[in-house]
């Protein structure tokens, strides 16, 4: 099984998020970057499949991804490809960049996270599958390799799942909770230092979309209850009593 995994160095939605002066981008100061949460599950799944079936795991990152790629190597990926393009929010360009960067690679499976934690587009994976014309499935919660095929479960709404069988090569986007991603060990970090991290330059064209404006959503604010924890508790209990809940 030769597996390509896509990993994004993505901003944490819990970090301090501000709009830049130009009103068209997000202020990078205050942002904390790490491997995209959904991609962490994808990398883990790839490593598990490799441990079971042999082969190689190649992780591909578009943009300033060095830290994340090193982390993936430390988790157990065999080599990394960095694609130094800055597509911003345009998933089409990201997918194009990946397509070009992997054009010389032989693979049975491509795994990606379901979406990125910063832009939440959920596009790169399926766009890439479309460009490569290979079968695909999204929000995958279980992967089993059979003879030249994969049997997967994908998540539907309301706790339901759907089982499908895809011929290989195929592309799957992974939903959170599919596995328990391993911690990066000191040994892993040491070993990662000697692994290959290759830079591949590609050129991507225009893109279809343009950001007009980024802004903070107007929120209907809850009535705030303030005070010390005891005072807050006191007030909450009064509200619950008034409504006959206690």
């Amino acid at each position: 099984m030769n597996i390509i995994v896509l990993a994004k160095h993505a901003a944490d939605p819990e970090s301090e998020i501000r709009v830049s002066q130009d009103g068209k981008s997000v202020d990078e100061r205050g942002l904390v970057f790490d491997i995209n949460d959904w991609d962490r599950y994808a990398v883990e799944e790839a490593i598990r499949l490799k441990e079971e079936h042999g082969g190689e795991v190649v992780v591909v990152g578009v943009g300033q991804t060095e830290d994340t790629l090193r982390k993936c190597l430390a988790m157990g990926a065999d080599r990394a490809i960095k694609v130094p393009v800055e597509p911003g929010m345009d998933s089409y360009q990201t997918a194009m960049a990946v397509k070009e960067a992997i054009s010389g690679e032989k693979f049975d499976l491509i795994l990606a996270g379901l979406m990125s934690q910063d832009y939440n587009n959920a596009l790169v994976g399926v766009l890439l599958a479309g460009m490569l014309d290979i079968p695909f499935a999204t929000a995958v919660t279980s992967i089993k390799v059979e003879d030249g095929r994969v049997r997967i479960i994908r998540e539907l709404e309301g706790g339901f799942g759907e089982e499908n069988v895809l011929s290989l090569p195929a592309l799957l986007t992974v939903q959170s909770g599919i596995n328990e991603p391993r911690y990066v060990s000191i040994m892993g970090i040491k070993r990662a230092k000697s692994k290959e991290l290759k830079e591949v330059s590609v050129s991507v064209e225009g893109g279809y979309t343009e950001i007009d404006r980024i802004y903070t959503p107007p929120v209907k604010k809850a009535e705030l209850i303030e005070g010390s924890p005891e005072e807050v508790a006191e007030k909450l209990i009064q509200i619950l009593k008034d409504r006959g809940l206690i």
Partner: protein
Amino acid sequence: MRVFAVAEIKFGELDPVSIELLNLANSIKGDGTAEAVVIGNNISNYAEELAKYADKVWKIEDASLENYNPELYVDVLFQLFSKEKPDIVLVANSSRGSEFAPALATKLNAPVITDIVGLDTSNGIKATRYIFQGKLLVDILVKDGETSVFTVRQGVFKEGSEVGGEVVDAGIKPSITPKREFSQIIEPEVGEVDISQADIIVSVGRGIEDASNIELAEELADALGGVVAGSRPVIDSGWLPKDRQVGISGKTVKPKLYLALGISGAFQHIMGMKDSELIIAVNKDPEAPIFGVAQYGIVGDIFEIVPALVDKLREIKG
């Protein structure tokens, strides 16, 4: 504008999001048309229902379309759209729609924008969507493309009026053998507690930090006579069983009281609890989107608020 909405049929029913797509289509079509596409086997009843809200309904019927298959969906929709050349295609941002829409877009060479909550066609095409899990909004302009594809968030375009159109058979059959085969639907797991029936829910999010802290939520639930539920990361981490997940891919709950502890309020979570009678949220981030759906909010640390609340409740009970 010619706006096409791809209807969604789920477990033998027309999903309400299909009507929402047509509501949006009608509001942006101008002097054009709002048209629906329905795909499946034995689907005349759905087509008739859709025709109330559309100028025209295209039926694509075939035995092989009985179960959803993204490759067949892309294939038949591509056949229809290559001929009819819509300006805009609307698809539900559901587990299905968000899967096949991007592939359809690549085939059509069309721009695609996902999970939109607004679409303005008065001056070019401008879509609005959230980023950073609901913390920011972004307006995106479509630069070019004959057809543009959008996946639309459910629950946003509920208002609309009836139009009354006709149903036509598109006369389209699948032209490919898919490389993905459907095998079966898997039912949700069932546990001892059914959170969808509970009156009081103490729900914990990633803010609870660790499995051992679930106990804190359990103490509070005990004191209130309620049950403990959680957001997805809590379930993904194995701190609570799968059947306790509230949200779009978990359960929908409507308790008398929903206490959200350390939950940011991502849309997928909110979809599962927004109809609760009373929502109270505790979160240390004053900007957390959960405060947008809660009636009462406490900006604070759950590890201080919850123990204080448990103490006071125990005092009352004696």
